[in-house]
C-alpha cells in the first residue's frame, strides 16, 4: 500500500518534469531537473545495488524524453551510488531515520544540506556531460548553479505543499 502510493507520487513528479519543466526555456540557463526528487526521497531500505539499478531506470526514462541517451542515466547512477555515504556523513544516529528520508525524520537543516549536495552533483554531471568540451565549461558551471537553485526551490515548495 505504502509502495503503491509512493510509486504514484513518483509518476506525478516524472510527468511534471516531462510535461512542464522540460518545456521551460528560461534564458537558456535554467533547466530544473526536479525528477531527482523521486530518487532522493526514496527510503533507504533497499540494497545499495538495487538503488543504483532504479537510478539507471529513471535516468533512461528521462534520457528518452530529452534526446540525451546516457547523460541522465550516468548522473542518476552516480547520485544513487553516493547517496548512502552522504546520508552517513550528515546523520550521526541512523536509527533516528527510521529508514525514511523525509523533512520530519531528517530535520529541515540536514534535509536542505542533503538536497543541495546531491542536486548539485547531479546537475553538474548532466551539464558537463552535455557540454562535453572544455570550451563550454564556464557556461555549464553557470547552468549548473542556476538550475540547481531553481530545482531545490521547487523541491522545497513541493514538499511544503505536501506536508502542510
Amino acid at each position: 500500500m505504502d509502495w503503491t502510493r509512493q510509486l504514484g507520487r513518483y509518476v506525478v513528479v516524472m510527468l511534471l518534469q516531462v510535461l512542464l519543466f522540460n518545456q521551460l526555456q528560461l534564458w537558456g540557463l535554467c533547466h530544473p531537473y526536479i525528477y531527482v526528487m523521486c530518487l532522493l526521497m526514496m527510503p533507504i531500505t533497499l540494497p545499495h545495488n538495487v538503488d543504483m539499478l532504479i537510478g539507471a531506470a529513471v535516468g533512461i526514462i528521462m534520457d528518452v524524453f530529452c534526446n540525451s541517451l546516457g547523460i541522465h542515466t550516468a548522473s542518476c547512477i552516480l547520485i544513487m551510488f553516493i547517496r548512502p555515504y552522504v546520508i552517513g556523513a550528515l546523520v550521526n544516529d541512523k536509527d533516528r531515520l527510521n529508514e525514511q528520508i523525509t523533512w520530519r525524520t531528517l530535520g529541515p537543516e540536514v534535509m536542505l544540506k542533503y538536497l543541495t549536495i546531491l542536486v548539485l552533483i547531479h546537475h553538474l554531471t548532466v551539464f558537463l556531460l552535455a557540454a562535453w568540451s572544455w570550451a563550454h565549461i564556464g557556461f555549464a558551471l553557470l547552468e549548473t548553479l542556476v538550475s540547481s537553485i531553481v530545482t531545490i526551490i521547487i523541491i522545497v515548495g513541493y514538499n511544503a505543499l505536501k506536508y502542510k
Partner: protein
Amino acid sequence: MQNLLKILLRYSNFLVFIALEVAAFLLLSYNNAYPRSSFLSTANNVIAWQHEQMSDISGYFSLRSQNEQLAAENAALRNQICSMDSVKIVFPMHYMNAKVVQMTTDEMHNYLTINRGSKDGVEPGQGIRNEDGVVGIIRTVGRNYSVVLPIINTYSNLSCRFSKNDYVGTLQWDGKDIRFAQLADVAAHMVVNPGDTIVTSGLSPVFPEGIPVGIVENSVLKEGASYHTIRVRLHTNFKRLKYVEVVQNAHQKELEELTDGLD
C-alpha cells in the same frame, strides 16, 4: 578462491556502480554515433505522440501568426511560379511538408521532432528547410516521426558559400545564441563585409544550391589569424518554427555511395 569471492562480495556495490556507469557511457557514445536508436529517442511513437498532443494544444495560441506565415508563403510561391523558367534544376528534388511536434532551443544539443517518418519515405541525412531558409538535417527516423539535428546544435556542420563569389565555408554553432551561427574556414585573404549573403553550397546532396542560410552580421580577423571569425545572422527563426519541409533528393543514395568509396 573463497578469498576472491569474499573480496568480490565486499566490493560488489562499487563493482555494480562501475558496470552501470560503463553501460551508461556506452549508451552516451552510441547515441553520438550516426544512426541512433529511434526507440530510445523522441522519434519513439509514444513519446512523439505525447509531444504532438502538447503542441496541438499550444498550437491554438499561435493560429493568427501561423495564418500570416502561410499567407506570406503562398505569396512567395506564387512569385516563384511566375519566374519558373529561371529556376535551375541541378538535383531532382522533392519537397514534403512536415509539422514540428517537439523542439528545444536553449540547449547546446538542440533537436526537433517532426511528424514524418519512414512510412513517408524520410531517411537519415535528408535536409530540412522552411520558407525562410535552412533548418537542419534528419538524424533519426522512426516509423511515423523523425528527429532533426538543426543547425543550432553544436554537432552541426553545414557546407555554405558566399552568394557574391561562391567562396565556400563551414557553418557551425557555438551553443550560445540561436539567432547567430559561425562561418568557419574562410581564409584571411577573402574580403568579408557585413550584409554578405550566405547560402547552401550545393556541394553535398543534402541541400540544393542556393537555399538561404543567413547574412553576415560582423566578421573579425584577429592579428596573425589565417581564418576570419564570422558571425552569421540566421534567416530561420527557431523560436517560432512550426512547419518545415523535408528536402528529398532522388539521387542522394547514389551520390553517397559514390563518395563513401573514396574515404
